[in-house]
């Protein structure tokens, strides 16, 4: 298709399915913790509004969770179908980690999701709170395994190579590989921030419709608290993650900075901060760049003229520089925007005007998906940035691919495009329907029929999709 070979098609398919997938686990992780906070507030203060918000957001959580599972299954199968070299050579380690993710996800689902979604009228408040807490913990544990696996592929350790296969030598080293802590914190904070801005946007939307709505005010307030606390933490975590990347994946970092290396005889200039550039892969330089001299040296090496390895030192083993360079800038740019929004929110709150600044509400409403865009851009940076390696420094992407023809991959890619388009239109349309509902709707009373509720996540919502 379009002159792409089998590897390009497999990569595109993976990028496409994983980008769709990542949104839903991020939503589940963030919302599950948000629900814990709401229920805790409700139990502590006894205020109905927290309970109503809990009921409001749990339906959206249920749909997000359902879609996350469906798209996650596709991912797991792709390792075998499209990346069989990877499954065979790395399966002893990554297969085990992925399997543990599945097991922990099941543990949570089997034990607690049913109680959380359907048990409110049947178990005591503290048991129900415990279930909510365990579901949130479960989403975090699932994320842990996935990030262990991903981090291991980025910064492998604790392995031995036997007949071309990567076998575990020390599980503790495999799990606590060098980049795992940074990646984990960065991802979990990202999920929280995504949900903070989603909740803020939804709160703002309802405030614009009804200025007095208590649920909307509470949502906006909680979300802005979350944002002002989480954004600075995230920026520090991101910075530390960047330093870790410099240490373990220098080519990726050079691509993020758009830095090809010092010009001949000019080493003393240090590394500039490149604000804007048009990287040219063929000639190994930037065609056009706006640079601030020495600044990158300062934040990367903490010295005025400190050097890092430039892209030209890695010969052909570098990623697609424009893609990495720009996706990184999208992530950082949106991060700065979110920091600004959360500071404006804090300022408005300080002046007592958080609930009546309409322009701010409109901006928040329009920008409610901003966290997710930054999240996907961040993943593009880290995943495209490790190319041409799938297991960094050990296994090249082309050696990880299956021996499939472009024909099969084209057919399956088209099929995925069509099916995902249908499913996500329906799913997102339905979520928007749920979001538009009044957040402070009266609480339902449990009747005799309640006892026999099914246990599927999406049946937690009884809303019609027809609108």
């Amino acid at each position, binding site marked *: 298709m379009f002159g792409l070979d089998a590897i390009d098609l497999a990569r595109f398919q993976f990028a496409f399915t994983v980008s769709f997938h990542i949104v839903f686990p991020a939503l589940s992780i963030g919302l599950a913790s948000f629900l814990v906070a709401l229920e805790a507030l409700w139990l502590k203060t006894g205020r109905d509004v927290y309970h109503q918000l809990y009921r409001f957001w749990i339906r959206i959580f249920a749909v997000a969770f359902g879609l996350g599972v469906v798209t996650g299954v596709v991912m*797991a199968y792709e390792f075998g179908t499209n990346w069989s070299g990877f499954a065979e050579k790395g*399966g002893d380690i990554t297969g085990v980690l992925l399997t543990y993710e*599945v097991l922990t996800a099941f543990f949570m689902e089997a*034990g607690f999701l049913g109680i959380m979604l359907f048990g409110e009228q049947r178990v005591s408040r503290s048991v129900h709170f415990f279930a909510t807490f365990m579901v949130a913990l479960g989403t975090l544990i699932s994320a842990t395994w996935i990030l262990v696996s991903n981090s291991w592929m980025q910064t492998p350790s604790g392995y031995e190579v036997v007949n071309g296969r990567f076998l575990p030598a020390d599980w503790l080293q495999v799990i606590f590989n060098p980049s795992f802590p940074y990646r984990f914190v960065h991802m979990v904070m990202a999920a929280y921030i995504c949900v903070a801005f989603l909740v803020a946007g939804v709160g703002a939307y309802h405030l614009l419709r009804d200025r007095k709505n208590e649920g909307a005010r509470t949502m906006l307030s909680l979300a802005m608290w979350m944002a002002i606390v989480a954004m600075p933490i995230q920026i520090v975590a991101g910075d530390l993650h960047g330093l870790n990347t410099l240490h373990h994946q220098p080519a990726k970092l050079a691509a993020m900075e758009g830095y090809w290396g010092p010009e001949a005889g000019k080493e003393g200039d240090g590394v500039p901060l490149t604000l804007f550039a048009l990287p040219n892969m063929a000639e190994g330089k930037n065609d056009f760049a706006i640079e601030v001299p020495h600044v990158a040296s300062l934040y990367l090496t903490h010295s005025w003229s400190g050097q890092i390895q430039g892209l030209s030192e890695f010969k052909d083993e570098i990623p697609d520089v424009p893609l990495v360079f720009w996706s990184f800038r999208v992530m950082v740019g949106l991060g700065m925007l979110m920091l600004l929004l959360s500071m404006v929110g804090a300022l408005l709150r300080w002046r007592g005007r958080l609930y009546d600044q309409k322009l701010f509400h409109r901006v928040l409403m329009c920008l409610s998906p901003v966290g997710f865009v930054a999240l996907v851009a961040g993943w593009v940076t880290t995943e495209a940035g490790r190319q041409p390696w799938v297991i960094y420094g050990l296994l090249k992407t082309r050696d990880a691919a299956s021996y499939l023809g472009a024909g099969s991959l084209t057919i399956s890619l088209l099929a995925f495009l069509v099916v995902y388009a249908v499913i996500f239109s329906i799913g997102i349309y339905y979520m928007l329907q749920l979001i538009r509902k009044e957040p402070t709707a009266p609480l339902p009373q449990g009747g005799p029929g309640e006892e026999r509720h099914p246990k599927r996540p999406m049946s937690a919502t009884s809303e019609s999709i027809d609108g």
Partner: protein
Amino acid sequence: MFEQMSALPIAWLAIIGLAIAMYVVLDGFTLGIGILFPFFKGKEDRDVMMGTASPVWDGNQTWMILAGAGLYGAFPLVYATVLPALYLPLVLMLLALIFRGIAFEFRAKSTRYRHMFDMAFSCGAIIATFAEGIVLGGIIHGLNVDLDQRHFAGGVLDWLTPFSVFTGLALICGYALLGASWMVVKTEGAIQRRAYNFVRPLSLLVLLAMAVVAVWTPIHNVQVFERWSTVPGAVLMVVLAIIAIALCLSIISGISKRKERSIFAKVIGLFLVGLAGLLVSFFPVIIPPYITIFQAASSEKSQFFLIVGYLVIIPLVLGYTVYSYYVFRGKVRAENLSHY
């Protein structure tokens, strides 16, 4: 072949075998309901059919994920050879299952588009079943694996054989039988009588299909032929054949006596006989014709690390499965489908 046997890969074969058997039986009847959907046109009938599966359906599919994940961790070579070899039917199966699942969820939430979701549910079930049958047939038929390079070395359409198409169709009959006998247990009145009508022809078809597979397989697989023509393989196969015939006869005689539960149990028995037949014919080969579970196994450290998790999770998921069937026991009636 047996000298390098160690206990771990065998334990893993048992675990994954259990997960596959649970999946086939539990999701089999849900898929069967979808296959039978076109024969039950009324909205109320279809609501009842969905209602019999909706509380337990999600849990049923977890067994496939458990099997798939275990396969990846414990036998990565299987994952790396079977999945590319059966690429197109597997993708088809996944997409059809997703479609069916989404239709399942949204059918209950829509009146305007209900007929569309009905059709998506039914088509999804039929296509997924056919694809699963093709995958089964493709594996039995054997895969062209390059043992030195440890990857699939065949062509894109290797899986498309008369044999695999036959197993695809056979599985449609099989799941339809499971679905019909499940409905016999879970429904009553007119809809139950209609479900009863499907049991006899379908169980005869399934028995016939099993016989055909049993004759067809050794024709193209020398090892299976040898296994069956020597003791104890021959004896075991004769025993299994007798059990299958007895089960089938007993199912048919149970129809007139309205033995609801025992019919369903015996249909499950028929499936288990089929799986046992595969085990007898191929063990310890996991990818016919050559690759054994010992060659395909991941390292001992990996298998051991993983088995700890499975020993915790399998009883839990089993308990959860039993519990949800217990909670939602009894007949499903149209008037108390309010929850759905």
